[in-house]
């Protein structure tokens, strides 16, 4: 407990549960923490628990948590030697990362260059293609005729999607199931695109009807040591917002897991990436298709922590100091199963936000239950920020044991005074498709609409 801290003082440029998560890691490492907060968050848990706190602006995030100058000033006046950006807000802002480092303060995350590279979706796909990571196959440019399209479609594999270059909102988009339908679909899409956008140009892309969202966690130090920590299945989404995440994915074989993990780790090493990062894929028919890389800590990182036994925030802080990983891919053992439920302050049916005062808060306890939440009895959930107020992470030796435990934990969870999505999770845990692990990225949307 007395060995020198890796940093003297870390400023946490975030709020809510993730600020608390980072604060806990700092405290467990013997590192001082500085909380920054808006005037709306003066009573927030991360502020109350931090060693120091600095008000950086009014409630609007643009004036506070997104206010790079205020956060950097706070770091300077508090003599912080590192900044952890959490997720959201400034976490993937390359300019902020660069600015922090220019002021001689460590940015606990990847380099500005890597954030910038992966923030440019075209450049990211180009890099990944070069690194041998599969991307969604397509024509790579406009197709003019059926003759030109046919061999491309054959190569992509049916079903293919005809998409308008100028398109959007589904217009000028046609799914082609078999070669016989290609010509007609091209004509129809062209006509529709011309009518809608005044531009009839179309291209071809692989059509994924029922993909899962699979993402691979990587961790790298400054010395070229890289490990992957398995995948997370985040297919349980509503309006592109993840609702439940689990690890490992019930859809992957061990071979697929090792294959995609190794690809992600190799690409990470190739680009000289540092810190944590996540390669996101669509997965269908046994194939992975790269979507994007998140150059930050993810909301759902605890499910990975649960199955690999690592503290990812601690590792992030460690590698930011220049410390080597200290273990190799062979040392990483994944075991058990973990599920995370994101609990939002929302009506569980209409999803209308429900900020307000928490009249009673009681978290479930016992074996295999982890709660990451900044709520407490008497706290008022402000209306200015994201509605996620708690993460319930449950682990078990098997997926089935994990889901049984999740069910009992959800039943114990009390958040009174505001509406939350706990009842939604209670419904989901009873759904056959979830219990069987047979759901794609569209399933939840249909479930909540049904």
């Amino acid at each position: 407990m007395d060995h020198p801290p890796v940093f003297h003082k870390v400023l946490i440029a975030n709020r809510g549960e993730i600020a608390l998560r980072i604060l806990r890691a700092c405290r467990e490492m013997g590192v001082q923490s500085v909380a920054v907060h808006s005037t709306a968050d003066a009573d927030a848990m991360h502020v109350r628990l931090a060693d120091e706190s600095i008000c950086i602006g009014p409630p609007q995030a643009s004036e506070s948590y997104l206010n790079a100058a205020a956060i950097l000033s706070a770091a300077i006046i508090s003599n912080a030697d590192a900044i952890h950006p959490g997720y959201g807000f400034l976490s993937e802002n390359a300019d902020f990362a660069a600015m922090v480092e220019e002021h001689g303060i460590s940015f606990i995350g990847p380099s500005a260059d890597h954030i910038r590279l992966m923030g440019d979706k075209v450049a990211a796909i180009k890099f990944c293609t070069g690194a041998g990571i599969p991307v969604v196959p397509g024509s790579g440019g406009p197709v003019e005729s059926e003759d030109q399209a046919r061999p491309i479609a054959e190569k992509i594999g049916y079903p293919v999607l005809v998409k308008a270059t100028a398109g959007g909102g589904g217009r000028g988009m046609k799914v082609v199931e078999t070669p016989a339908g290609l010509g007609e679909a091209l004509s129809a899409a062209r006509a529709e695109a011309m009518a809608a956008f005044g531009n009839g140009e179309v291209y071809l892309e692989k059509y994924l009807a029922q993909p899962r969202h699979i993402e691979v966690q990587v961790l790298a130090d400054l010395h070229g040591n890289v490990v992957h920590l398995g995948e997370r299945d985040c297919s349980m989404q509503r309006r592109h917002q993840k609702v439940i995440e689990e690890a490992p994915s019930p859809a992957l074989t061990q071979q697929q897991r090792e294959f995609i993990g190794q690809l992600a780790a190799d690409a990470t090493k190739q680009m000289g990436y540092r810190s944590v990062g996540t390669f996101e894929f669509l997965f269908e028919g046994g194939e992975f298709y790269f979507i994007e890389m998140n150059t930050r800590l993810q909301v759902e990182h605890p499910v990975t922590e649960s199955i690999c036994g690592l503290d990812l925030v601690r590792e992030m802080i460690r590698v930011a100091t220049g410390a080597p990983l200290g273990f190799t891919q062979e040392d990483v053992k994944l075991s058990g199963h973990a599920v995370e439920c994101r609990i939002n302050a929302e009506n569980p049916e209409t999803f209308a936000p429900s900020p307000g005062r928490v009249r009673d808060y009681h978290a479930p306890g016992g074996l295999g239950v982890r709660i990451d939440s900044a709520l407490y009895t008497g706290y008022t959930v402000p209306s200015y920020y994201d509605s996620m107020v708690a993460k319930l992470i449950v682990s078990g030796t098997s997926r089935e044991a994990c889901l049984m435990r999740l069910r009992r934990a959800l039943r114990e969870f009390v958040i009174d005074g505001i509406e939350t999505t706990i009842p939604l999770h209670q419904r989901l845990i009873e759904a056959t498709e979830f219990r069987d692990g047979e759901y794609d990225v569209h399933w939840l949307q249909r479930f909540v609409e049904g």
Partner: protein
Amino acid sequence: MTEPSEKPKVDAEAVRALADLLHETGLTEIEYGNGDWRVRVAKTAIPAAAYTPTSPASPAVSGLAEGPAGAALTDPDLDHPGLIASPMVGVIYMSAEPGQPEFVKVGDTVSTGDTLVLIEAMKVFNPIKAQHPGTVTRIFVSAGMPVEYGEPLIIVE
């Protein structure tokens, strides 16, 4: 009270007056006697209202311990209409350059637009100017002091 008979009359006015006093004074109990006559009124604090959840984090509420924020929490001047609060996080400069006189001192008369202090943030010196004419009656900050957003700087009456 003057009635000698067995059936006493409750002096509702007296109880109401005491209840008002209880509320007004913030007391929880008043016992009042006059000769044989005596009244005691009480109001138990409601648990929920009385509970200020301090403990989870008792260690730190305001981090910049050296700043005035902590001490000033109950300062009545914080509600003063002429109070100028810091619009940013930064470090205070009281004069344009080292060795030069301070922009303002207590007692100075200022006009709208006069610079009161500078706040350095990200190597930019931001002048904090008087929004209305008046007299400087209080200065909360001093040169080199770090300030957070909303921290009291100066009162111009």
